[in-house]
């Protein structure tokens, strides 16, 4: 018997993983949730059939979405995570003793419940005493905050589903308001390669640029995401992610990371020419 999970990266490109067992399948009010086990990638989580993370390569995503802003400003104390129901982003954040409070806002409580049961690798730190969980729309949550966070991480799904509101100008504006005067916003920024993803990426970037004075994009290689080439957005009120990188300070923390290091930090902001052009071009 052969059982395969297939995600359509485009209408004409499919990505498949051979499935060993289905561990969980269910519907929440917002989406379908599945957890599979595979030989190659270990356990993996999909929402509405789209790949969220695998045990084998999630370290890349979570390293890059957390350590880049933390090495830029190691004095960050209060963090807001929007989305991130699997807990991986929170897990990386809890490794910093200097962080005092982490608010995580996930729209779908069921995702957290499922990840606690089936993906302890990422969900293990959700019970850290510094972490507070809120189950509501991130757009609504952040609208009510002002001058409160040093860092907001948007760990969302794609902008075609419940995550759509997290790629809008009103959301980025509300984040600006919720951040302190030296605040940083990091978000998952889609892929530059396939048209649909590239277009959302470009629109998101255009909207952030209208709101934040400093806007940079950096990249990572994530084997299970469409095209494998994934971008992150770094937006801030004062910090430049390269000029203000606190290399020595971060290295002295002696955190063991599998993907991130401060050399790669600098290099990840060097983008291919076609991506640079995309970012500068107009919305289609």
């Amino acid at each position, binding site marked *: 018997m052969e059982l395969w999970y297939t995600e359509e990266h485009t209408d004409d490109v499919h990505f498949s993983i051979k499935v060993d067992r289905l561990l969980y399948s269910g519907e929440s009010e917002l989406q379908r949730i599945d957890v599979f086990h595979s030989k190659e990638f270990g356990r993996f989580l999909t929402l509405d059939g789209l790949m969220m993370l695998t045990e084998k390569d999630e370290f890349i995503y979570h390293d890059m979405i957390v350590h880049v802003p933390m090495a830029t400003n190691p004095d960050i104390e209060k963090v807001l995570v929007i989305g991130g129901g699997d807990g991986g982003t929170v897990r990386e954040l809890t490794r910093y003793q200097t962080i005092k409070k982490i608010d995580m806002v996930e729209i779908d409580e069921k995702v957290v419940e499922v990840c606690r049961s089936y993906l302890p690798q990422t969900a293990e730190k959700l019970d850290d005493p510094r972490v507070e969980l809120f189950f509501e729309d991130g757009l609504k949550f952040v609208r009510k905050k002002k001058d409160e966070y040093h860092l907001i991480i948007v760990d969302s799904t794609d902008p075609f589903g*419940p995550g759509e509101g997290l790629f809008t*100008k*009103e959301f980025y*504006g509300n984040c600006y308001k919720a951040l302190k005067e030296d605040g940083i916003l990091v978000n998952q920024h889609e892929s530059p390669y396939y048209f649909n993803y590239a277009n959302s990426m470009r629109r998101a970037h255009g909207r952030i640029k209208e709101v934040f004075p400093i806007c940079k994009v950096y990249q990572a290689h994530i084997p299970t995401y469409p095209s494998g080439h994934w971008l992150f957005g770094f937006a801030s009120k004062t910090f430049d992610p390269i000029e203000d990188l606190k290399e020595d300070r971060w290295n002295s923390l002696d955190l063991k990371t599998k993907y991130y290091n401060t050399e790669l930090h600098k290099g990840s902001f060097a983008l291919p020419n076609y991506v640079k052009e995309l970012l500068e071009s107009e919305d289609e």
Partner: protein
Amino acid sequence: MDKFLQEKAPIFEALKRYKSNRIVRFDVPGHKGGRGNRELTNFLGQDCLTVDVNSMKPLDNLSHPTSVIKEAEKIASEAFGSKNTFFIVNGTTAAVQAMIMSTCKTGDKIIMPRNVHRSAINALIISGAIPVYVNPGVDKKLGISLGMPLSHVKEAILKNKDAKAVLVNNPTYYGICSNLDKIVEMAHENNMLVLVDEAHGTHFYFGDDMPISAMEANADMAAVSMHKTGGSLTQSSFLLCGKNVNSNYVRQIINLTQTTSASYLLLASLDLARKNLSLNGKDIFKRTMDLAQYAREEINNLGGYYAFSKEIIDGDKVFDFDETKLSIHTLDIGLAGIEVYDILRDEYGIQIEFGDIGNILAIISAGDRILEIERLISALSEIKRLYEKDKIGMLESEYIDPEVVLPPQRAFYGSKKPISIDNSLGGISAEFIMAYPPGIPILAPGERITRNVLDYIYYAKEKGSLLTGTQDMKIENIYVLEG
């Protein structure tokens, strides 16, 4: 309501039968099920083009219904509580005009509020009826015209005993209702018919805790824009008639101007929308109301904005309020409604129904989800943060009391000449000017061009409102009556 009957949709069912019969087409339309226009078929879908057909024996004929359309009309009558119902495919404009033209001939008087839709005044130009305007109350703070005060309607009726009908908006674009029950009573006592523009009131017939509907209030005719909040396709609408109306004459009037090639896409959409609302309307409009109520609370919490609701009810000018309407007063953040409307669309990709001088209106309906409501609230919060300014210099009131010199038809067809709007003060207009939407005339044919009118036009232009109505597409010149 007979639930079993409401589960039927005769026009829709006849179309399905037609489709499965695979009839060979040697009639119009010439695209023949889409084969003659591939690009259009790919865009709209094969299913859609297959049922874009002309009237024929098994599908009945809108101008003289005897089978499936007749049956669909009967079922709709039962759903709306009317004696007769007409399917209208030329827009609610056609329904409003049919109401006026079947009650008023040249020289007949009709009592109406001035804040009617342009379609009503257009009907006066066509029929030659003479308007007797009732000054609607105005809310000074909100800058919107309200419902007709009962005392004003009474005065108009007593002064014009020869009037044929009273036209009532139920509700206005903003959701405000007049005391329809009492107006009907007064009008009937004086042998006048009551015509109701329910372009924005479809849901009154199907939801709980709604303002009274025209048929329930025993009014004589009502134009119901099914496509606005009822879920049918754009341009489709119902005309309802009560027991005092000769519906065969109404059909003749409708047939004067309605197309003889009625679109079956529109007809089927009316049939299915009626079915859906009859069966599920209570739930649908409960949800709509809850969403609107939630949005109002959150928007009012932002400060600066005022999303008004039932608290403005005063028992007369605002006899009742339609809570599904999300009307928001914006002047207190120093922005005209039209400015907020533009920012929402241009900066945030959010399209709302309209913005006028002091307010915006968002339509909440069965198709809305909480996710989009949250986006609207967040965008309004951002607009306040980024654009809020001092209120000084904002034009306050919107209602301009018209000085009617001539009936619309005489002014429109009178001997006229174009002059620059700048030099038009004191002239009698032969044309309309309106800001679109909401499409309520600032100036109508036969009315004096006053200082107030000109100030409003200049201000609306400056704030970026879309002005329409004059022959001159730039609205710089206007035709006025000679002599």
